[in-house]
C-alpha cells in the first residue's frame, strides 16, 4: 500500500465521519486516526510492526459523547481536569461537555495517560468530534 492510498483512505474517513480505522494483519497493524484534525507536520498515519511481545504504548482518540461546549476544566476550577501527561483511571473525566447547566464528562476509556487536547477550551463541538488524545499500554 502506498502513502497516496493512505491519503485517499483518510480523506474517505473524513467524508464518512469516521475517526479511527484499524487494520490488523499477520505481521502488521495499521491505524489511521483523526485525519480531519491532523496537520501536515503530524501525519495521520501510524504503522506498527506487531512484533514486540511485551506491553507497548498505543494511542486512541476520545470523541465527544454528545454535543456541547467542550471544557478543559470544571467551571469552579482554574486548573484542567486532566492535563496532558496525567495518569488517569478508566472512567475518569478528561474534560466536560456543557449543555446549559448540565455537565457531561468526556471519560478515559481505560487506564492510561492523557495526550493532547485537540479542541480548545470552551469550543462548541458536535457528537463524535475528536477531543482528546489518549495513550495506554496494550498487552499483546
Amino acid at each position: 500500500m502506498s502513502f497516496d492510498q493512505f491519503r485517499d483512505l483518510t480523506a474517505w474517513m473524513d467524508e464518512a465521519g469516521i475517526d479511527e480505522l484499524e487494520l490488523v494483519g499477520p505481521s502488521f497493524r495499521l491505524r489511521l486516526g483523526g485525519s480531519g484534525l491532523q496537520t501536515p507536520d503530524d501525519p495521520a498515519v501510524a504503522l506498527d510492526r506487531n512484533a514486540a511481545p511485551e506491553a507497548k504504548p498505543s494511542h486512541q482518540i476520545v470523541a465527544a459523547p454528545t454535543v456541547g461546549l467542550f471544557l478543559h476544566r470544571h467551571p469552579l476550577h482554574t486548573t484542567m481536569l486532566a492535563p496532558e501527561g496525567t495518569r488517569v483511571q478508566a472512567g475518569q473525566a478528561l474534560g466536560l461537555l456543557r449543555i446549559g447547566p448540565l455537565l457531561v464528562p468526556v471519560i478515559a476509556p481505560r487506564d492510561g495517560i492523557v495526550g493532547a487536547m485537540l479542541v480548545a477550551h470552551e469550543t462548541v463541538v458536535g457528537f463524535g468530534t475528536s477531543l482528546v488524545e489518549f495513550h495506554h499500554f496494550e498487552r499483546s
Partner: protein
Amino acid sequence: MIEIVTTGALATVQDRGRDGALKWGVGSSGALDDLALAAGNILLGNDDDAAGIEIQIFPFQARFTEDCAFAITGADCGASLDDLPLPPWWVQTATAGQILNLGIPRRGAWRAGRAYLCLAGGVDVPTVLGSRSTQLRGAFGGLDGRQLRSGDRLRARAVNSAATRTGFGLSPPALDLPLTVGDLPAVRVLPAAEYAQYTEAAHHALWNDAWRVTPHSNRYGYRLEGTPLLAAAPIETRSHGIVPGVIQVPPNGQPIVQMRDAQPSGGYPKIGVVIEADLWRLGQAPIGSHIRFMQTSWDEALAAGEQNARWLTEARRLADLHSGRTRSC
C-alpha cells in the same frame, strides 16, 4: 446503605424544610443551601422532598455498604470515591465497600462552606411533622433528632439505584446565577418593620458595609459584624413571630440573620429580611468571610424566586433527558 466513617460535628439529615410548622412553634429546619440539596436530588432523579446529608465540618468519610447511586453538591470538597477523583456537583454510583471522601472546602471560583451528600431515593429516615429534616432544638426528625456520628448507618430509599445512569454533573447556580457587590457575595434584603426607626448612618452601613460572618454563626443564625446599627430612639417590641431571613438588631447594634434552625419567635427589632431566594447564598458564606446586603423590592424578590425555580426546572429537564429518565410530573 452508607456508614459514616468520619464526620466533624453538626452533619445532619436535611430536606427542603418543615414548612407550615411555625404555627405549632416548630422552626422550619431544612438545608441551608436549598439549591444545592435540590440539585443533588435532580442529579439522582429523586423527588424534590428527598432528604440528604448536610456536612459543614470536614473531612467527612462514608463507606457504602451496598451498591448505591449518590450525588455530591454544595462546597467543592475535592471529593473522591476511593482514589477516583470526582468533579464537584456530581452524581456517581458506588459499589459496596467503596469509600467517599470529602476534604476541606476549596477556595475556587465560589467560596462555600457546606456540602451535601444525597442518596438515590433520598435518605431513609421517618417523616416527622411533614419533613425528614433534623430539628436539633426539639431533638426530632433526621436520624433520632441528632447530628450524625461516626458509625451511624443510613439507608437510601431507592432500590436498584445502581441501574440509574450516573457519572455526570451540574454547573453550580452560584456561577449561573451570580450575585456580588464588588468582589463580595451579596444577598438581597427587604426593609422590615422597624427599618424606618434606624438612623441614616445605620441605613448607610446596612447597605454599604462589608458584613463579616463571625464564628458565632450557625444553622440557628448568622451573627454579623460591622458598623453598629443604631436606632434613632430605643425600640421596644414584644416577642413576635419571625421567619428565616429576618435580620434582627440586638442592643449592641450587630445584626443577626435568622437561619433555618431559628426559633419561630423573637423580640429584637427587625431592620430587614434576606429574601428567601437568596438564603442559600448566605447559608454558604463561610465563617470569617464577608457579605454585602443589597436593597430590593417585593417584585424583585419574587422574580429572584422564579429565577431559582427556572434554573432547577432546566437542570431537572436536562438531567432526566441525559439519564434517560421519564417523570410523570
